[in-house]
């Protein structure tokens, strides 16, 4: 529990609310190893030939694909906007799942920061500062969120559905899964979490807060393949569009 620093606690709470999303397993293998993307798979795509479109995906299909044992890691890339900044802030680094119970968010550029979630605790370590710790167990809504993502990772749809309404859409080569929080308190902060991917690769997580701009987190091939992101639109496009 972040006893002496309530505001720090709030920061961490918010951080944790969105962080576990990155716990989604990622294959370390380069995306180039995957089948080449088809030209017609963009958001405003023209209908593909029937043979190429494949079957429509459902949540079970996606969950089954995402399930993978640790250790795993995946690069990530995020973009932040502020009137106080000369240009958008692009943060990149790596998400790691060294074992089934640990999740690490490591920022490498433009600064070094490591957040480790393990044993119900989140530790934020920044270069040159003493690490700050927050306990998840004291915040059951976070523990529930943790549990729900545990469900996502282990492919336990029943458990996942106790926390979120799940909606799956798309085809194997370009799918989305929308998680809408059922818990009223979480729902006051987060409208939805949209997962986007191709086959067994989770490429982007778009967190849609109740207020403000959507927050895209590019993962895996989407992160490493993203070029210069100059605006939120660039980032959202990179998140939503499967490369041609």
């Amino acid at each position, binding site marked *: *529990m972040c*006893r*002496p*620093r*309530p*505001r*720090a*606690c*709030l*920061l*961490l709470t*918010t*951080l944790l*609310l*969105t*962080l576990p999303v990155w716990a989604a397993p990622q294959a370390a293998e380069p995306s180039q190893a995957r089948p080449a993307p088809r030209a017609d798979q963009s958001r405003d795509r023209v209908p593909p030939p029937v043979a190429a479109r494949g079957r429509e995906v459902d949540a079970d299909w996606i969950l089954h694909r995402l399930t993978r044992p640790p250790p795993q890691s995946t690069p990530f890339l*995020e973009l*932040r906007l*502020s*009137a*106080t*900044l*000369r*240009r958008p*802030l692009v*943060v990149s680094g790596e998400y790691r799942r060294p074992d089934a119970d640990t999740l690490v968010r490591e*920022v490498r550029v*433009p*600064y070094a*920061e490591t957040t480790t979630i393990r044993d119900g605790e989140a530790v934020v370590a*920044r270069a040159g*500062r003493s690490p700050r710790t927050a306990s998840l167990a*004291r*915040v*059951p*809504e976070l523990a529930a969120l943790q549990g729900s993502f545990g469900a996502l990772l282990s492919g336990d749809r029943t458990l996942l559905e106790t926390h979120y309404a799940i909606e799956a859409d798309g085809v194997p080569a370009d799918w989305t899964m929308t998680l809408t929080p059922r*818990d009223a*308190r979480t729902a006051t902060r987060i409208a939805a979490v949209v997962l986007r991917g191709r086959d067994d690769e989770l490429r982007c997580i778009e*967190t849609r*807060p109740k*207020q*403000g701009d959507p*927050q895209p987190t590019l993962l895996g091939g989407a992160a490493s393949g993203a070029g210069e992101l100059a605006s939120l639109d660039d980032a959202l496009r990179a998140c939503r569009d499967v490369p041609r």
Partner: protein
Amino acid sequence: LIRDALLQRPGLRLALAVAWLVVLLLAGWLIAARLEFSGDLRRFLPDARTPEQKLLIDELGEGPGSRLLLLAVSGDAPEVLAEQSQALHAALASDDRFTVVANGADTDLSAFPAELLPYRYLLTPSFDEMPLDADALRDAFDARLQDLGSPAAGLVEPLLPSDPTLETLVLAEGWAPAAAPQRLFDVWFDRAGERALLLVETRAAGFDPTGQLDAVDTIRGAFDAARGDSAATLQMTGPGAFSVDIGGRTQREAQRIGLADTIGLVILLLLAYRSWKMPLLGALPLASAGIAGLGAVALLFPGGVHGITIAFGFTLIGVVQDYPIHFFSHQRAGLSPWKNVRGLWPALSTGVIATCIAYATFLFSGVDGLRQLAVFTVAALAVAALVTRYLLPGLVDPAPPDIADSPRLQRLWHRIEALPRPKWSLAVLAAASVAAIAFAPGPTWQNDLSKLTPVDADAMALDTELRAELGAPDVRYVLVAQGTAPDAVLAATSALRPALDARVADGRLDGYDMAARYLPDADVQRARQAALPDTPTLRALLDEVLVDSPFLPEAFAPFLADVELARTAPPLTLTDLHGSPLASAVSGLLLVHPDRATALVSLSGLDDPADLVALAAQTQAPGAELRLLDMKDASESLVIEYRGRVLAAMALALVLLVATVWIALRQPRRVWRVLLPTLLTLLVIVAVLRLAGVELTLFHLVALILAAGLGLDYALFFEHAGDDRADQIRTLHAIIVCSLMTLLVFSLLALSSIPVLRAIGSTVALGVVCNFVLSLLVARHRAAIDAARAEPEPVA
């Protein structure tokens, strides 16, 4: 002429009695509408003399510990409890009766008035060690960039332009309770996560049971609304909740006992006089006395009548119930009621005058509540005696059967007269009583007022538990700085912080709170102003620090403006805080009067009070006086002083009582016969109580006065009956009825679970038995006894 009409027309008599009752009800209703009730216990305390007593009475009745209520909501899922906690918070926070309502939800700085926000640079200690220079700014901007890169960016970003060092957050963190409980679903919960916790500070003083009752009722009402149909329950502890609880229990128990008494008295009067009119007629003087007493107090004390005055007063005037009884028992065919009452008047008036004079000594006790009690009882006793003398004779049946003719009573009287009466036995009784009083083990006096109003063990345990969970301050100890100016006392408490922090760090203290945490004194604020850079300097600093950074220097114009405002504004004072969320926190800990100021440091989990006494003595505090106040000590010293005054008043009362009886009876032998049973009874009561291990309280003392008054009446009437056999039997009947009634009322009180009622009940019940026996054996004329013994016992 009127008397003849009354004597011949029973219907008229009854109609007049009913009319009297109606007038009394009407008067009662009128007075009740005018009567201002005051619940402030301080009116029942003597004037404070020592600085500690002054603090206790003048300041701490409004101090933080005594106004704090600890709330726990349990019995449902944590998220439901959290919602109820929020709803309760919302309902109470907007209520004027509460100064602080905290449930752990984040201190919302948006509630902090915008015009006060720039003052954060005067309130924050961030730049005391290291100034707001290039290094500090560089450090802050580095951290802010990482905040922007974190998932919490949305929270930090809006604050950045005016507050790149996040001083608002630094202050919010600093202001959070030192040892706050864990938070689930944004609100405080206990360690087990089963009870949502809230802290509420009432505006009403801890000494104000009416205000506390209002606060507790409001909280219960708000909780019922917040709960809806959930199974959750609310538990409440703290001095206010306890006083409301014990007050409610005392009232319920007193009402139950009162009901039983009323039924018992009606039955007793029916049995004693075999007439259904007697309970009505017997109640009229008592009711008139009560109304008269209330009226007198309402008239003379427009500032409000204390609830305790009323409760005590009605207990003490129970003695007037005896007046009509004597009258009824002597009424018989052939004797005009007016003649009858005239015959009784010397004994009756002597008793009433003596008791009134005794109570009148309370007028000089210097305690407002006791003065009210004196006015109430004197007015009530006088009115009861006068209506018995002048109104009641017109209403009774003039020719009831003569009680002296009852064979059963005659036999009883004869047997009593046959009892041996060795004179030495009284000397032995007196000596034994004095010895018992002198040598009984254990303390004689009970100074701890809380023992009289005991909180049950469960509630006490809950209080201890919640206090520990919430880190709520100790009720007993508080560090106090007193001085003439707010700044001096703020600085004095502020100087204690390093020492207190050290004690918190090594566990000798769990935590503390003081106004200086929120509002530094003016010198500190001025020093911080002097250290702040002016606008050109700060702009140059920003340009220098941000030259290679992702941040835009121009975006931070609001920051420059805020710092400039803070640098040039007059220092913040308590009055500036009005209406801000800080005002309530500060005002409970900093009490400002035109000519003096008091700053309090509330302490929680204090292990060694002596250590803090030494700390207070060592700490240099120019313009202020520091001390550790032990509220228990201070309140006990008040009790001791209070008792001193009551005892002095009682001693004076005793002298006056003896003098009155002496003047009335004139002959030393008669005076002796009347006073001996009363005085001996007082000795016996105290001896029995002490032998039973009872520690005496103020309530015992007040009850002793009542017992003495009763005893005096019994003795006066026995003595007054003289040598006449029939009159002796009638008096015996009257006193048996009187003492049975009083015994019934007070032995029920003596069985009560509430110590205050038990103290009064046991003392008076003992007094009644002892007075009855001793008056019967001692107060009578020796010649009458000898004559009776010569007669043969009557047969049935």
